[in-house]
Structure formats: structure tokens, C-alpha cells
């Protein structure tokens, strides 16, 4: 024990007891637990800056109100940013919010030191500039500022070092333009940010902000990146509150006082149609092209010695079975024609439809190579496509010739249902129901917002029931 400090016996005893109690309550963690633990969120610590947000915020608490507001604008922190605590500096925060109401929407430029992305952070080479896009005060008095920041990504353009033969994100996945959202109300100031990624559709949620939690004045907010087709971004909360704004330079922020996440986030397009944005709960929609593709499935089993008399016709029938079952909108009452033991699969099918209605309503399939193992059995590659979540890529499925029809094998259906929480009874043959790539194995499902099947923090595990 260090002997640099006089220690009161009561304090020494208290600390010793506390240490012992904590040791007893927190069992040791062995390597096996660590290896098998699923971590679904990025835990990468923010880089340490010379002028850390904490350090600057600490100074801000001792400075005049205007200085605190300016330092808030200079800082680009993690989701929580820093907050001017109610008890420590109510006047400062008041000034920051009122100042917002007086600002014009004329773009302005502020020198920044660093930028954070979704809780992580990094210092950019050079000194990037923030260009203010908009300032808006909501009906509840929450001031929302949006900034764009151009980053100097250095000689390599920010591209990661990718080894030969490995998947590498395309250049647009390492953008030099970043959006920063700043929120302020009477109690707190916070900041959040997102790269300006390529869009998969007309708009995407680029993160949910948590503001003012510790100050007792929470605000739920969303950054939304839009294309030029979007006229309005609208957030609706469970209590009926609606906040909306026209995007500026492809960005908007909507916010509502309270901790509740929005119940709907949507955009209105130029043709007056409305598009609902996904990943409200996770708050972030990561571009599909920036995610590594799932690894290819293993090789198909070898072809059998005996092949169907008319292999082309059989191949067509197998394809038809997969396309009928895995195409949204087809009559499910006919599934018995295309699925082995279809009656036993009704319960897991209903369960998956209940868990993932959007995926079930949008599913389609691509059938790849078909290889006949015998005159009555086939193995094939197939890939399901749907909206609303992570795709599991190409898989190996099986088909059987039963009662004059080629049907999707029971085990293949159980594999697909297993991705979304459907459990087959009787259980399928494991050899014919094992998922490939990043798809979860049967029995690992933990719920629509669960983690067992997730390979990225913001992806929602999903699957689909046959139409």
C-alpha cells in the first residue's frame, strides 16, 4: 500500500471492506467468457486530445456564459457532449439557449479541433472548419444547430489499409465531409455527429442523440441525412408530438423534450409521397455498401451419380418452389405444394412474420447453382433479399422430389425460420439446417432487438417468413 498519505483508520477499514465486498460481488472473468462474449456496440475509446472535451468543459464552467457557449461550439464531443450542469451554471446555459434564438440562419464558420463519430472520436489532421447550415429553435425551445465540417484526411484520403484479397470499403465510405448537430436548452449543451455517407435511399437516420439526461432535461433527437428529393423531415413521438424541418444541404435535425425515442421518423418527397426511415431504435442507418459482404457459403455437396431424367425441368421446378415461397405477396395457402411437411411449419412461420413483418412483406429470392445429389434430392445456393435489416447473404438450401413436386426441404425452412425466432417441432436435421456466413444458427435468436445474430452495432437482426 502506498504510504504517501496519512490514512484515518476508519477510512482504511472502510476501503478495505469495500474492496473485499466488491471482489466477492464481481466474480473473476476468465478467457473463455471473454472469447464467447458478444459485443454488439463499438467500444473503441475516443482518442485523447490535447484539449479534451472534459478539460475544456471544466474550464467552461468557471468562465462567463458567453465563453461557455463559444467553447461548446468549438467542441465536438461524443453523443453526450458536455453539459453545463443546472446546479453549477444555470445562467450560462440560459444564455446559450437565448443566444440561439437571436441567431440568424446565415451560414457562419467556426474553427474546430476534432470531431467525434457516434461515441468514438478522432482528431483530424489540420484544423477543419465548421460551416453552419442552420439554426432552428423547436416549439419547445430546444435550439438545434447543424454544421458541416470538411476534414483533411491526409495523403491516403482516410482510406483504411486493406490487405490484398480482403474486402475494402469503397472510397465514399470514408467521407471527408461530416455533419455536426448541436443541441441546447436551458439546462445543457450537447453535440453529436455523423459522416456524410452515401445514401441507400432518399434519406437515412444518422444517429439518435441523448441530451440533458444528467441535468434532468432530456431531449430525444435524430440527425437525418437526405437527398435533394426530400422536402421535409418529420419525427413523431409516442405522446403525439411532431417536429419537422426542411433539410438544409441534405441535413436536418428533429427533436422533442423527453427520453422517449421517436415512434416514427419519415421524410416527405417532392412528389408528396412519404418514406419511413428505418433503424429508429438503433438510431443509425449504416450504408449497405460500407458493410463487408457476408462470407460465401461452403461448397455445395457433390453431384450424385444418378441425376433426374430431365435435369433442366427439375432445375426449373426447384427454382419455382423457392421463388414461390420466398416472394412476398404469393398465396401462402399454396405453400404445401412447395414446402416439405408444410403443416408442421405453420407455427414457426407465424412467429417469424410476427417478429419481422417488414422483412416478410418485402422478401424476394435469388436462386443460384443447383446440384442434384440424386434423382430426388438437390442442393442449391439461394439468397434472400428484404428490407428492414441485416442480410445474411448466400446460403445453401435443399430440395426434395415428393409426390411429383420439387419442394423446399424441411430443414432449409427451419434454418430460415430460426433466423427470426421460429422454432421447428420436430427439430430439423442439423446437417441440413446449418446457416452459413454471418447468419445466426437456429436457437440463437434473442428477439427483434436482440444481439445474437448481429454483426454490426446498428444492424437489426432480421429474417423473413415465406410470403
Amino acid at each position, binding site marked *: 500500500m502506498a504510504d504517501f498519505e496519512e490514512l484515518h483508520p476508519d477510512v482504511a477499514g472502510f476501503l*478495505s471492506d469495500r474492496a473485499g465486498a466488491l471482489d466477492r460481488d464481481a466474480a473473476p472473468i476468465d478467457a473463455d467468457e471473454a472469447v464467447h462474449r458478444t459485443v454488439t456496440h*463499438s467500444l473503441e475509446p475516443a482518442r485523447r486530445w490535447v484539449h479534451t472535451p472534459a478539460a475544456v468543459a471544466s474550464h467552461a464552467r468557471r468562465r462567463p456564459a458567453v465563453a461557455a457557449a463559444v467553447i461548446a461550439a468549438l467542441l465536438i464531443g461524443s453523443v453526450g457532449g458536455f453539459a453545463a450542469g443546472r446546479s453549477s451554471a444555470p445562467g450560462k446555459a440560459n444564455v446559450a439557449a437565448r443566444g440561439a434564438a437571436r441567431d440568424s440562419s446565415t451560414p457562419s464558420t467556426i474553427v474546430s479541433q476534432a470531431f467525434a463519430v457516434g461515441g468514438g472520436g478522432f482528431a483530424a489532421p489540420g484544423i477543419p472548419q465548421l460551416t453552419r447550415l442552420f439554426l432552428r429553435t423547436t416549439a419547445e425551445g430546444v435550439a438545434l444547430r447543424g454544421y458541416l465540417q470538411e476534414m483533411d484526411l491526409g495523403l491516403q484520403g482516410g482510406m483504411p489499409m486493406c490487405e490484398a484479397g480482403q474486402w475494402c470499403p469503397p472510397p465514399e465510405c470514408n467521407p471527408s465531409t461530416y455533419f455536426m448537430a448541436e443541441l441546447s436548452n436551458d439546462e445543457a449543451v450537447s453535440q453529436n455527429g455523423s459522416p456524410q455517407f452515401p445514401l441507400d435511399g432518399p434519406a437515412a437516420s444518422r444517429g439518435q442523440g441523448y441530451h440533458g439526461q444528467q441535468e434532468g432535461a432530456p431531449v430525444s433527437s435524430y440527425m437525418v441525412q437526405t437527398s435533394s428529393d426530400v422536402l421535409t423531415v418529420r419525427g413523431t413521438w409516442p405522446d403525439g408530438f411532431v417536429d419537422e424541418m426542411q433539410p438544409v444541404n441534405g441535413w436536418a435535425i428533429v427533436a422533442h423534450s423527453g427520453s422517449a425515442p421517436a415512434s416514427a421518423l419519415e421524410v416527405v418527397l417532392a412528389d408528396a409521397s412519404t418514406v419511413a426511415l428505418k433503424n429508429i431504435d438503433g438510431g443509425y442507418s449504416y450504408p449497405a455498401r460500407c458493410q463487408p459482404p457476408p462470407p460465401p457459403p461452403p461448397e455445395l455437396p457433390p453431384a450424385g451419380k444418378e441425376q433426374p431424367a430431365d435435369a433442366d425441368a427439375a432445375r426449373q421446378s426447384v427454382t419455382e418452389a423457392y421463388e414461390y415461397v420466398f416472394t412476398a405477396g404469393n398465396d401462402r395457402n399454396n405453400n404445401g405444394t412447395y414446402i416439405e411437411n408444410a403443416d408442421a411449419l405453420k407455427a414457426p412461420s407465424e412467429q417469424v412474420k410476427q417478429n419481422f413483418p417488414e422483412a416478410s412483406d418485402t422478401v424476394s429470392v435469388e436462386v443460384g447453382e443447383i446440384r442434384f445429389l440424386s434423382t430426388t434430392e438437390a442442393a442449391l445456393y439461394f439468397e434472400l433479399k428484404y428490407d428492414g435489416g441485416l442480410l445474411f447473404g448466400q446460403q445453401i438450401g435443399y430440395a426434395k422430389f415428393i409426390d411429383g413436386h420439387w419442394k423446399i426441404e424441411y430443414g432449409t425452412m427451419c434454418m430460415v425460420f430460426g433466423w427470426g425466432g421460429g422454432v421447428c417441432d420436430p427439430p430439423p436435421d442439423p446437417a441440413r439446417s446449418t446457416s452459413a456466413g454471418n447468419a445466426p444458427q437456429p436457437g440463437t435468436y434473442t428477439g427483434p432487438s436482440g444481439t445474437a445474430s448481429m454483426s*454490426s452495432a446498428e444492424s437489426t437482426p432480421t429474417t423473413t417468413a415465406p410470403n
Partner: protein
Amino acid sequence: MEVLRAVPSLDEPAAFGEFVAVVEPKLRRALVAAYGSELGREAAADALAWAWQHWDRVQTMNNPAGYLWRVGQTSVRRTTRRRVREVVDGREFELELIDDGRGERMVEPALAGALDDLSPQQRAAVVLVHGHGYTLSEAGEALGCSISTIRNHVARALRRLHAALEVDDG
């Protein structure tokens, strides 16, 4: 937003096991001291899982324990952020701090409150040094900071604890 990296090949668990045996106690004790038994242990487990997923990087670090302390802090922030959201579902939000009811001897009740009022770093530092008997160097390694920083954390923590006893420690 990070896509999880592929785990190391299966022939490396032996080295990782040795690493965990060395680092885990100080990492767990630091995080548990800072954030309480349940939250701290979860954070330590998350940090070690992260270490396994980034094993190539971890092996090149000068002070992996200190880095994992920061990974654990990030995990705590993530966890508490998720818990804030659970308020919406009608569950009670509770930022878990150190349980103050487990002392075995009679102590001044204000000590527990004073310990909880410390910053996580101060709390971890003083519990590691004066609770577990770590040297300043060992505690600094666990928290990823210098000896002088640890000394300051401990000194400030003790001043607060002594103040709770109304002790003049001169």
C-alpha cells in the same frame, strides 16, 4: 457503428488466457470500484471481449490494461445510455454505483456517500490503492495514467473521505 472484426484464429487462446490471467484482476477491480459490482464487471467482461476481437492490436500495446480501462468506460457509457432508454418502457432508471451496504464493520455512514460522490477515476484509484493494496505504479497501469495522476486522484479522494469524517488529516 463498428463492424466487429473477425476473432483471432483458434490457436491463440493460450496466449490470450495468459493475458487475461494477468490483466483481468486489476481491470475488473478498477471498473468495479468505479462503477459498482454489476456494471463494472460487465464493463470488464466487455473490455476483455474487445481485447479478444482486437487481439492483434492488443499485443502491440504498451499498456493494454490502461487501454482496456478506457474500453470498459466506453462500455459503461453505452450501457447507461441504453438504460436511460428503458425508462420509456416503464422500467426504473438506476445508474448503478457502488453498493454502500456491504461493509463488514461499523463505519461512519457518510463514508459510503462520500465514496459514491467521487469521480469514477478517484474512486477506482483510492479503492485500488487503499482497498486492494496496489502500488501507485500498479494502479496507474490499471487506469492508464501516470503515477503523479494516481497520486492526485488518491489524495483528493482521501481528502473527501476524511472530510466526511470531519477528520483533519493535516
